């Protein structure tokens, strides 16, 4: 895919290449066991451990390379065969934008009504919220890098609002990382 979208402003925003994504639903025990079978761990509530995104008390989003999604899905399905669980390939459902730069928290704070101060939003935290007018999962991957996971149909809108928020002359300077 060569037509991945990106721009630079207060932050750099890049569309991530297609990624393997699997919705896994089950109770904590089921999800723990199933994830273990593919070498992953169940993240704590409200966190993402790199591969697995906590979505809900009975749902996680498992991320893996796109090539191996079939294999991972099969493994999860087989691990949960006798249990009440749901594992589905949803790799095409969403688009992921990566946001990097010192103003990462700030740009997100223009669009999402969430507390992004570092004490309240540590690295590794994921929060399902809205990005302006669309649902979004915000994952702070590193201090200056976040991923915004949104539905694919509204990718252009997401890009548009991020671009507006990241206007080079629109710095706010509220967070410790880019205090003004």
């Amino acid at each position, binding site marked *: 895919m060569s037509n991945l979208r990106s721009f630079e402003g207060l932050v750099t925003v890049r569309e991530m290449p297609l990624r393997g994504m699997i919705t896994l639903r089950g109770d904590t025990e089921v999800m723990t066991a199933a994830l273990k079978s593919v070498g992953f761990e169940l993240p704590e509530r409200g966190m993402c451990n790199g591969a697995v995104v906590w979505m809900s008390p009975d749902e996680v989003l498992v991320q893996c390379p796109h090539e191996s999604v079939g294999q991972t899905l099969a493994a999860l399905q087989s691990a949960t065969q006798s249990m009440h669980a749901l594992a589905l390939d949803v790799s095409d459902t969403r688009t992921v934008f990566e946001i990097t730069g010192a103003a990462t928290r700030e740009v997100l704070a223009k669009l999402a009504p969430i507390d992004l101060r570092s004490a309240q939003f540590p690295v590794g935290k994921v929060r399902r919220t809205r990005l*302006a007018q669309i649902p979004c999962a915000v994952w702070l991957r590193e201090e200056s890098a976040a991923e915004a996971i949104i539905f694919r149909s*509204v990718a252009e809108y997401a890009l548009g609002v991020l671009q*507006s928020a990241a206007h080079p002359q*629109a710095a706010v300077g509220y967070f410790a990382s880019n205090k003004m």
Partner: protein
Amino acid sequence: MSTRLNTGGRLIDRTQIQNFSFNGKQLSGFAGDNLASALLANDQMLMGRSFKYHRPRGVVTSDGSEPNALMNLGEEGRFEPNARATTTPLFEGLYAQSQNHFPSLEFDVGAVNAKLARFLPAGFYYKMFIHPRPFWKHIYEPIIRHSAGLGKAPKARDLDTYEHFYAFCDVAIVGGGIAGLQAALIAGAAGKDVILMEQDGHWGGRAPVDGDIIDGQPAEDWISATLKALEAMENVTLRTSMQGSGVYDHGYLLGYQRLADGAPGADGPRHRLWRIRTKQIVAATGAIERPLSFAGNDIPGVVLASAVRDYLVNFGVSLGDRTVVVTNNDTAYLTALAMKDAGLEVPLIVDARTGGAGALGEAAKAAGIRVETGKGISSVKGGKRVTSVEICAQAGEGAPLEEIACDVVAMSGGWSPVVHLWSHCGGKLIWNEAEAMFAPDPERGPIGADGAAFVTTAGAASGAMTTAAALADAHTKLGGPGQPTPAQDPLTNPIEPVWMMPQSASYKLRSKAWLDFQNDVKVSDVQLAAREGFESVEHAKRYTTLGMATDQGKLSNINGLAVLANQLGTDIPSVGTTTFRPPYTPISMAAIAGEARGEIFQPIRKTPMHDWHAQNGAHWEPVGHWRRAYTYLRGEETISEAVQREVKNTREALGLLDASTLGKIIVKGPDAGKFLDMMYTNMMSNLKVGRCRYGLMCSENGFLSDDGVVARIDEDTWLCHTTTGGADRIHGHMEEWLQTEWWDWKVYTANVTEQYAQVAVVGPNARKVLEKLGGMDVSAEALTFMGWADGTLGGFEVRAYRISFSGELSYEIAVPAAQGRAFWDALMEAGEEFGVMPYGTECLHIMRAEKGFIMIGDESDGTVIPQDLGLSWAISKKKEDFIGKRAQLRSHMTDPNRWKLVGLETVDGSVLPDGAYAVAEGANANGQRNTQGRVTSTYHSPTLDRGIAMGLVLHGPDRMGETLDFPRVDGTVVKARIVDPVFFDPEGEKQNV
């Protein structure tokens, strides 16, 4: 005349000259000026006209409470009406025009109203213009409307951008005066996350102007040191030009930041609206000086004493050569002293108090200023500018004792704490008799989520009216350590309330004593309202329009309700105040809307094939936030021609529909069958794996809410299709029942709508194109009607459903969304030899109507039950329960007189008007024509080449062949016959091949 002095002006930079235009005159000021100070420096005291009488008006304040000096600012896409000159920073090229006059500010024909003032008392329009009836709309109202209004209406599209910012903190402090700074220092030192905002462009509030001494040093020095300390704190955020505009529930504060009002056209947002969530709001918003009510107090040159001082100290502008000060409290003496100190004349201080001032009185006398105590102004003389005042005894009726020439009257009627933010969310006030003001009642603050008060006030906003008291109040409220910062000011003697000057002013004087400058409400108006029974403060306000001007009563309310209380013979607290509503001062609509404009006004949802549609003539139809192709226009053809072409082609050859927007929901679990039996009116648990079934969903209130095809994927998995608009709604509906009613049922759902691109491949050549792509067996035997299968087509992994909404041979093919476009392209290419054309939603609608299939949103409208639509076959008789079943047993739902679905064909072959009603004999008790049916959807059928329609008709299915009358809106009638709703291929031969 008003002028710039050679020295002074702590906020201006005399090295930077800025040129601007006012009413076509080229003027100049300095960097740091605001528009008001710059105009005054150019001897432009006359700045506007009042609302009702078009009286000449000058500036009266030096802040956002200004009622008079409102301007049409800027031009074209950067034009703003009603810009307050007092809060508009001066910049090079500023372009301003005064408002509400014709033809000019100096000569305004509207001023004739002032001559008629005696005929225009409070409420006059309720008593006049009653006869003759048409005159209100056509004569009186247009005249009144035209003379009202203020600024011009903007015309061009806004060229600026705006944004929001969500900030969370522990303490948000509004007001960067000394109390706010002190509060920030304490909260910041305690390690709290603090936002301190100041609406003006500079810190410190009144203290530097008033010459206060804080902690043994001039206020200016203390402010600088405090700012330095705050800037060093990582946890403190400081912002100027940002107003705390509104307080809402649960610690929500609006911060209105004006980023580019001093530099229009600069790259970046003009305004930023902060939406702050904080544990505590500290309103350190200071106090506003009140005018005094004496005759002629609206003449240009009568200005609040504090404003006279502000212009002098902050901008080096003197408002006039001879200033008479009139007051009922100590603070106005500071103005007299400052003016004198600047070398200007202060012929007299008129102090209504018999005791006069203390230390300041002595200082005034020492400076050679004459002070008269126990006196008042009986009237101000002058037209467009003050020329003199007449002095009288405050205690009397206003017999003039002496006339004194002057060009400025600096008035002070005392101070009102700015309690707006305290009050927005329910904080209560108490009347402080000693200070003659309403102040926050600390016992009854606005209640937050935890049940405790979340707003506090600090400083003058609390009613702490001396410098020391203000700092001490901030210290106490914020729980500062040790002792409060010491301070000194020269205020010693208490205020004595003066609500009318003189105390027993005659009617003539009262009818010239303004309360609300902009809306032209006078003391006599409020008195009249009270006499006429408008005793509630809200009645008096609405009857007189007191406090309803753009300053929202900041200057007038307390004076007005004191007059009301007096007239009613009661006290001020029993009259009470009107309600304080956000915003504190007006904020731009654009800032409220934020970034949502133009392309990002709302999300547009796009399918994987969206760009192809756009490039191939799609005429769009919004369906929710989706854009679907209504039809694809070719060449010069009209929309209707395009639709007819698509129908014909699909029926005769091959059509493709982008069906990706249809909802797709996976339902899985041991109890999934049982669950779907509750969700759908039909039985879904007995659907065989590999098969599809059309299902209906109802609300618990019985009405049809959605339909779609359900496929059974495996033993405990079903895939439910919904309408385009239904995807999120139905998924939510399912989860709601699972989570809140049947939480012990073992079912998981997932909304996989966006995972798949789905294409309907429709028409006699449908199978041929799929076979050409190859990979899976799509033959009539292998994939039977209402079956589905997984496989590959042209190398794409697909799920193929053999379903039809058109009566044609039809497949719906789902592929992963990322491959949707490639799959579509492959179909178009392979289909070329079979006459492929894409078709849009209107073609879909026509084809299904030709087949008599209902459409959610057309045949159903939220009041229709499946039984109305002849869909009883889809309602299980075997099931004990499903959502909506009980509701459908109510008497009105089982009424045999409910209108039922039928087909309608016009006698003359024309198309029935959409939404037309079939009339019945006579009229009902309200004189409305009786009806017996209505059209639910209507089209020209290209297949049959005549109008076809569906409709709901009383006893319709029993009246086949009868003709009904459908009046058009123009009164003519279309006759239509009741027929079977299946117009085309009733045996289903075309789809079952």
